[in-house]
């Protein structure tokens, strides 16, 4: 980390000119009170997981730019109920910009978020930004080299992500080559992208965002994958092996799609609606199988000679399925938000996400207040629905969260 700061200051001295080093800072504190689902079929394994455990984190961020060099770094101290506090320092972004005029490039670790959606982004296959988290930590960029050509209404880019990597344990670290195309066509933005990686082979998709009315924005995106993966409960007979509680199936091909709109009123109210399809997500039958296997593991705990630790371990391992980016193949999201048009700095939102596969839902209500340098957030999220839906099975009933961000 010290190396990056030294480089930032040196590059500021060499390249900076009138504004050698431009730094700004944030301190971000987050607390979450999580309520476990006491009657969960995973209850025996939950002590080995983070479900239902209160937690907090204090994050310090420095973001800066000196000449062509940009840096974003965070230091985080975290504490979770029942665990020792931990800390970590992370360089979220560190990259150089180069080029002039229409041809530009960048090299280093950089955030590469993409796509037009809010709740789901099929085309975000490089950054893989987690969606719908409450008060999420700062994103971590992707090691990449990018070359782009811009005109007033068009942009074409080539990106090599994680150069030198092949197929890695985490798809985010996979080596890949991608192309991006952007075209502005009146009140519509058109995006097209393609990527090749060893894991997914060819992926290609397109997106649009259009404003047909002063209050209405429409958006949509779709992705085709030549190959894909789906994580599902194990099909092996051994239910007590934590390493094989879940399995990743290869799909010959898969499609993902999203359609949505935002409607904004003069009064400060806005409505967002989205629906999406993700063929790589587990289906209703997968969640039912996960629940059935959890019940079978609980039954094994009563069998003499079966170690309780093995049952707890395999139950805990099976809950990793709740950490997948999409818990449902078909879902719909509605979000009503309000921004105070007075001088009071208040905003509020109510989100409802419904799984159309299995009848599960999550509802989040949040409120925020912002002044010159301070932002305060608070909210509550609850999970529910049919008992064998993804959100109905989730080993937490909900959480209450608070956050404070001080910028200077």
């Amino acid at each position, binding site marked *: 980390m010290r190396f990056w700061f030294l480089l930032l200051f040196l590059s500021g001295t060499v390249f900076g000119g009138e504004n050698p080093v431009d730094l700004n800072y944030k301190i971000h504190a987050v607390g979450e009170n999580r309520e476990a689902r006491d009657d969960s079929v995973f209850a025996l394994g939950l002590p080995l997981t983070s479900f239902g455990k209160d937690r907090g984190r204090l994050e310090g961020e420095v973001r800066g730019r000196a000449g062509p060099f940009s840096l974003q770094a965070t230091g985080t101290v975290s504490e979770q109920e029942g665990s020792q506090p931990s800390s970590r320092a992370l360089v979220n972004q560190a990259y150089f910009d180069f080029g002039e005029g229409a041809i530009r490039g960048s090299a280093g670790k950089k955030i*590469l*978020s993409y796509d037009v959606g809010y709740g789901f982004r099929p085309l975000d296959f490089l950054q893989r930004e987690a969606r719908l988290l409450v008060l999420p930590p700062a994103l971590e960029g992707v090691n990449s080299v990018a070359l782009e050509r*811009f005109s007033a209404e068009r942009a074409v880019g080539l990106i090599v992500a994680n150069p030198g990597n092949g197929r890695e344990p985490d798809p985010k670290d996979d080596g890949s080559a991608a192309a991006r195309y*952007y075209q502005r066509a009146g009140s519509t933005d058109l995006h097209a992208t393609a990527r090749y990686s060893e894991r997914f082979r060819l992926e290609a998709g397109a997106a649009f965002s259009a404003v047909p*009315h*002063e209050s209405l924005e429409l958006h949509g995106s779709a992705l085709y994958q030549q190959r894909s993966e789906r994580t599902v409960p194990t099909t092996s007979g051994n239910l007590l092996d934590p390493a094989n509680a879940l399995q990743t199936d290869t799909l010959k091909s898969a499609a993902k799609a999203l359609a949505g709109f935002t409607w904004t009123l003069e009064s400060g109210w806005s409505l967002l609606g989205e629906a999406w399809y993700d063929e790589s997500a587990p289906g209703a039958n997968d969640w039912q199988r996960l629940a059935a296997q959890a019940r079978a593991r609980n039954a094994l705990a009563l069998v003499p000679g079966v170690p309780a630790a093995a049952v707890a371990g395999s139950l805990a391992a099976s809950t990793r399925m709740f950490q997948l980016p999409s818990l449902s193949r078909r879902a719909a999201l509605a979000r009503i938000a309000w921004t105070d*048009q007075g001088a009071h700095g208040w905003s509020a939102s109510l989100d409802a996400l419904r799984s159309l596969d299995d009848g599960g839902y999550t509802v989040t209500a949040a409120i925020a207040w912002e*002044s010159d340098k301070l932002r305060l957030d608070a909210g509550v999220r609850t999970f529910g629905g049919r008992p064998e839906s993804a959100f109905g099975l989730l080993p937490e009933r909900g959480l209450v969260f608070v956050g404070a961000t001080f910028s200077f």
Partner: protein
Amino acid sequence: MSKVFVLLMLLSFSCRAEDVKALLKEADAFRLTAETLRVDTEVRVFKGEQPDKTRLYAVYVKPDRRSLVVFRSPSERGQKMLMLGDDFWLVLPSSQRPLRITPMQKLLGDASTGDIASLTWAEDYDGRVVGEATVGGKPCLKLDIAGQRKGVSYPRIVLYLAKSDRRPMAAELYVASDKLAKEAEFRFGQVDGRTVVTQMILTDRIQRERRTEVHYLARTPKTLSDEYYNPAFLVRADINQ
């Protein structure tokens, strides 16, 4: 006879519209001193008489209704808003992707970025002179102008221009429902021997306790090349903040 009368009426209306355009151009010259420049802007929001927030912006203006707003306050640093005619985009630092936003979304928030980024009337409005009034002790022409494009922040403005030099003295800003949203008052200073608007004071007529002062701190000749006004370019950090 009646055809001649209609023709004369049309000609009269056309001349009057042209006159209004000319008046608006003269008024614009007090706010935008060159076609292409960077305007450093400070927005002070007051709650009653108490200062509540201060925000800093760098606004890069280019002909053909192109504006790029770079947010420079600590809590907003990294945000950028691009206005190309009636089209608008926003980039938030947390996500680094350009979001197309509606004209209505542009109006939300403490200080409407439309108030900061829109520095001309002649390109966007047309209307007629409806009378005369005295504002700040100066005899003024009273203009009632209407937005000619869907992306304007205020579809209707009643504008008071000094009869002597056409400087804007005051404005009544109406939202789409034709409700009076804000009243603007302009203050002037001498910059490089030229009289220019140095402050625009906006008094909110809906949230009555709210007042916003827009201070134009500096106007610097600055030309950003066309690619800076491409929404896909916004995620790059090349703009010197």
